[in-house]
């Protein structure tokens, strides 16, 4: 029998198993999640070296705030708060959202769709899995923690780059991209909230340089320090920082940018699967996208960042649930 070469159209329309879409989605979310947790750990480690002597309470609070990135609690283990938090968030397999469990979950999902992703993507996530479980990883964590965290961040960066460069832009790619954007929005909301937890109440008591350092590390945790400086130079005014993280149109890690990414991905998925309908997740994201397009920073400030981010987060969460209902539970 002759094998037909599918046309571009039919290649795009090639069916995608719901279970596969589900696994691609979670694979992508876990990779993105690991990156944020690793960056949070790296920046905090670095920050606490910079600030010098802080009151114990404030010092611990910086660490504790990180636990909220994954909704974890402080374990009952010996040692100071800092090492308990870093150990849990790095290596505790029982802690959902720790680096080791996110990488393992990403790999487990990738393994279930091994035939749907590229060899490059698979080998990156598979190698990361074996690496983080090795003694060398532990040693690096003890000796050069920043380097250890950077290696995890680079796994995500490499994986996402490989996704862009090797995966055809079919439904598979769109689900990966959708998941990445949704996870990034959620994690960004959590990071800003965690930073507010870490120093909001005591902000007034901090001297000016410390305040600047706190806001700088917030933008650092969103991987935006250079982009921010190019936009506002060294002015780390809280309003500007928050505005940048939420609304900056061209910054690939801002909330607005990723809402529009997610919206684009879901509407393309919908066009390929059920072109005549309006997808419920698309509706939620479309409205949020419009809100952000016409948002006014001073209005956001009046509502309060915390409140505003909470509402963004819950709308994005709703979109995620709707995606699952529409595409994965068929």
């Amino acid at each position, binding site marked *: *029998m002759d*094998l037909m070469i599918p046309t571009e159209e039919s290649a795009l329309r090639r*069916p*995608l198993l719901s279970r596969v879409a589900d696994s691609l989605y979670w694979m992508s979310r876990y990779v993105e999640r690991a990156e944020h947790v690793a960056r949070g750990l790296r920046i905090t480690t670095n920050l606490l070296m910079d600030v010098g002597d802080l009151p114990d309470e404030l010092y611990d609070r910086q660490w504790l705030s990180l636990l909220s990135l994954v909704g974890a609690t402080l374990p009952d283990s010996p040692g100071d708060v800092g090492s308990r938090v870093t150990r849990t968030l790095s290596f505790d397999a029982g802690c959902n959202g720790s680096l080791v469990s996110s990488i393992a979950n990403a790999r487990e999902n990738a*393994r279930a769709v*091994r035939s749907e992703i590229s060899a490059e993507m698979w*080998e990156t996530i*598979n190698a990361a899995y074996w690496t983080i479980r090795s003694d060398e990883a532990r040693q690096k964590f003890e000796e050069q923690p920043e380097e250890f965290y950077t290696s995890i961040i680079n796994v995500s960066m490499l994986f996402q780059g490989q996704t862009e460069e090797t995966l055809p832009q079919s439904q598979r790619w769109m689900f990966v991209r959708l998941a990445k954007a949704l996870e990034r929005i959620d994690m960004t909301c959590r990071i800003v909230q965690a930073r507010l937890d870490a120093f909001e109440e005591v902000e007034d008591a901090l001297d000016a340089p410390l305040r600047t350092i706190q806001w700088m590390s917030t933008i650092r945790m969103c991987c935006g320090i250079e982009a921010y400086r190019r936009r506002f130079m060294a002015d780390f005014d809280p309003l500007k920082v928050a505005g940048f993280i939420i609304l900056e149109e061209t910054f690939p890690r801002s909330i607005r940018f990723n809402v529009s990414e997610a919206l684009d991905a879901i509407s393309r*998925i919908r066009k390929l699967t059920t072109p005549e309908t309006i997808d419920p997740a698309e509706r939620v994201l479309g409205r949020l996208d419009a809100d952000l397009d016409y948002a006014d920073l001073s209005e956001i400030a009046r509502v309060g960042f915390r409140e505003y981010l909470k509402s963004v987060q819950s709308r994005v969460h709703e979109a995620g649930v709707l995606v699952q209902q529409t595409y994965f539970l*068929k």
Partner: protein
Amino acid sequence: MFESYDLTGVFDEMFEAPGAPRPHYAPALERLSRLDATSFQRRRRMADVTFVNQGITFTVYSDKLNVERIFPFDLVPRIITAREWDIIERGLVQRITALNLFCKDIYHDQRILTDRVIDPALIYGAKMFRREMIGFPVPRDIYIHICGTDLVRGGDGQYYVLEDNGRTPSGVSYVLENRTVMKKVFPQLFDDYQVRAIEDYPLNLLNTLSHIAPRHADNPTIAILTPGIYNSAYFEHSFLARQMGIELVEGQDLLVENNFVYMRTTAGLRRVDVLYRRLDDDFLDPLSFRPDSLLGVPGLMNAYRMGNVSLANAVGTGVADDKAIYPFVPDMIRYYLKQEPILPNVPTYVCARDTDRKFVLENLDKLVVKATNESGGYGMLMGHQATQTEREKFAELIREDPRNYIAQPIVELSQHPSAIDEGGKLRFEGRRIDLRPYILSGDKVIVMPGGLTRVALRRGSLVVNSSQGGGSKDTWVLEE
């Protein structure tokens, strides 16, 4: 590293006599002899890392920890001459042709039973005989589309068929991956030889599957049905899906409606026309077979019997690779093809026969006893190694259920040099091997040149199964 190589008295694939390689092994021996241990070790690590990185692992289940292991890979290639392969290939084509005719006959006219070539009791007593298949015309009369036939070489240098795996034979992904790795770690050695390519296997498999598509399907949707990620052969299932560019589905992805099979996709239901199922009959359809199976698809058998979905291999092929039926394959060849078998069977005693059983019970210490419905090296007695108690236990089992046992003389499998690492010291030692070629029956019969050479890596062991500590090596069939 060949200095202390011991020929041990069995057939050695590489050496005719101490220090004297068979002509087709001479170039390989020369190159391997020139390597020092360090550089060989480096290549070995390179191969292992490649397997780990690609996730070519199988899972070993122990108490709490599931350990992922690689299938040990032995870097010394097994080489088969074109002349020898020609015999093997013709023998295998002959054998699969007869086996397919046998399946068709058994599920339709049963001439071979009426003519008393095979005792009907043996067929009806076979666990894998499927009454559901009687009278059902499978697409294009092919039952066994993918077969893995295990060959061993005896002390006389003759290849014997040890068994046919006509249900869901595995291992072909290792054959293809072993080749890729060999080319990478031993490019020069590979270049010294004209090795027949095996890389077209996925395409041949795809064509074999397309060949049986239901006639209503113009552009058939073909999928592999896997038990899932926790199955020990999952890597192979996903590998083949990737190589062929088809979907890899689990039971939960499929459903049957109006006797058609559909998969659940993001765009709704999508019809599936051909399933290459890597699931035993028992698990295929809880409505027809084991009701507790969560791996299968309720209603699949009905869709199959309506001709709306094709299955490879067909349901019920287990009757052909039942160990109690195996002794009759040479008779099948004579009966259906009017030919003499090209590849002989290993002499086999069928315990269901009174005279055979008597002989078996009297000679348990010289025989290998196998349960007819087990595979993977389970349910076996190696008479000469077993204790008196173990032998007595088996004698009892045989008397209780003679149909369930066969016995064979111990085949002294041929040996092949393997790289053995003992305490960091590397040398070549002879290890027993077998060979599993893969045979595809579609439009025509295609035998993959080579196949999986399995190695019993434990010294003196005759058991090559991966579940029993076996490894594998690349198998080279020469162009001429």
